[in-house]
């Protein structure tokens, strides 16, 4: 308990708050990494995921890519990028982009796949072009799962952005590595509390967002087989497992 109080005291100490090495600035860097990496990853992964989800082609590849990337050790990847790009924000940012891709990709294609095929067929039957099918039916109906993917990837990246400190990339990890090297537990704990609190706040925002963007008519509930009533599962929305690091 004393340790936790020490960590909180560290956070509250004005000396640790302002200036280039204060946690206000480090927290902003952490957020910058998070949103920067997820935005870049989204530009790559979402169109790709939509393509896979719409055509059904390359699904196995997409699954293995998103599964395989998960086992990729971030520290090793960070160091490799570091060798190539030097210190600063670039290597950590790229590492985090790699990390952010799998949940986004999965969210995008599974969002499409979870849609009742009859709905898509109906859309075609009323004369929609393929583009209209994607834009007016699949994208809105796939939104809940996509937002789930975005949420997963943000939470994963926000915790892992601490690694940036390992190669002089700033953010909250700077305190953690220094604390580990000098046994400064209060600083370390203070920074960890900040990271977890940040994750909690982002989680809250996304839970809310997920509720808001679900189109009318999409059932928002835990996924389950509804076999007694229908032979096909409905598009379902769930909250993602939080993943971090």
């Amino acid at each position, binding site marked *: 308990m004393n*340790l936790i109080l020490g960590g909180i005291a560290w956070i509250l100490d004005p000396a640790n708050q302002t200036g280039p090495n204060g946690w206000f600035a480090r927290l902003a860097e952490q957020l910058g990494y998070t949103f920067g990496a997820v935005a870049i990853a989204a530009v790559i992964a979402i169109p790709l995921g939509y393509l896979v989800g719409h055509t059904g082609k390359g699904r196995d590849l997409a699954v293995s890519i998103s599964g395989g990337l998960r086992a990729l050790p971030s520290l090793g990847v960070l*160091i490799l990028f570091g060798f190539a790009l030097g210190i600063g924000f670039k290597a950590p940012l790229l590492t985090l982009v790699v990390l952010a891709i799998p949940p986004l990709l999965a969210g995008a294609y599974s969002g499409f796949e979870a849609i009742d095929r009859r709905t898509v067929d109906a859309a075609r039957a009323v004369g929609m072009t393929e583009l209209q099918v994607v834009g007016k039916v699949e994208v809105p109906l796939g939104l809940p799962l996509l937002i789930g993917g975005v949420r997963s990837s943000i939470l994963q990246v926000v915790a892992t952005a601490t690694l940036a400190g390992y190669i002089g990339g700033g953010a*909250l990890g700077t305190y953690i590595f220094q604390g580990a090297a000098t046994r400064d537990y209060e600083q370390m704990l203070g920074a960890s509390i900040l990271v977890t609190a940040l994750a909690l706040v982002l989680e809250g925002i996304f839970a809310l967002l997920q509720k808001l963007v679900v189109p009318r008519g999409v059932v928002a509930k835990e996924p*389950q087989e509804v076999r007694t009533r229908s032979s096909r599962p409905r598009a379902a929305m769930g909250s993602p497992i939080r993943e971090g690091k």
Partner: protein
Amino acid sequence: MKWLESNLDLVWELMVDHVALCVPPILLGFVISIPIGWLANRYRPSRGVILVVLGLLYTIPSIPLFVFMPIVLGTPLLSPVNVVVALTIYAVALMVRTAADGLASVDRDVLQAASAMGYSSWQRFWRVELPLSGPVLLSGLRVVSASTVSLATLGVIIGVQSLGYLFTNGFQRNIPIEVVTGIVATLLIAVVFDLLLVLLGRVLLPWSRGDGRQDARRARRRTATLVAEGIS
């Protein structure tokens, strides 16, 4: 390449250490998550709280968690137990929601049928609920396995041997091939673990492989939903 030739023994030793570090948390995480997941389902109001709180454990940055373990547990500073316990915490954080969802995915009619056949709730759990939620549990376990194998590399930062050594050492000595070897070896372990789990699933859960196209389609859709649930 010179480095790789003269360090094959080291790589092998570290892989063995790495496996030793990863297996207990994966198994423990699985075993611990199931009763928690069951409890979460059993008492509806508790579900959200349990799942959210445990899920958030995953956002604790790993290095501080490793460092604080000896203080909390009273274990020696350099003991691998510190990393094992920390990785177990992450495994539980990842697994608990899947365990709850998996157990909840069992058709209620089937459960009632089991009760009607005279199963006690204890028997029903072991013979019906657990096996039928197997496919979902397995998909969660595969995620836990991959994540644990990757996270264990960070143990090196608190002096516990794992493949992460190749990262920090290669970093200082400017030997990219050493870092690459570490990444490849980590992925290799993850793939072998995954294959073993899939094999185990095929053997223990033969019904999870769809017999007809209809089932296959449904199973595929269900995994799709799960995948997007974050178990990608």
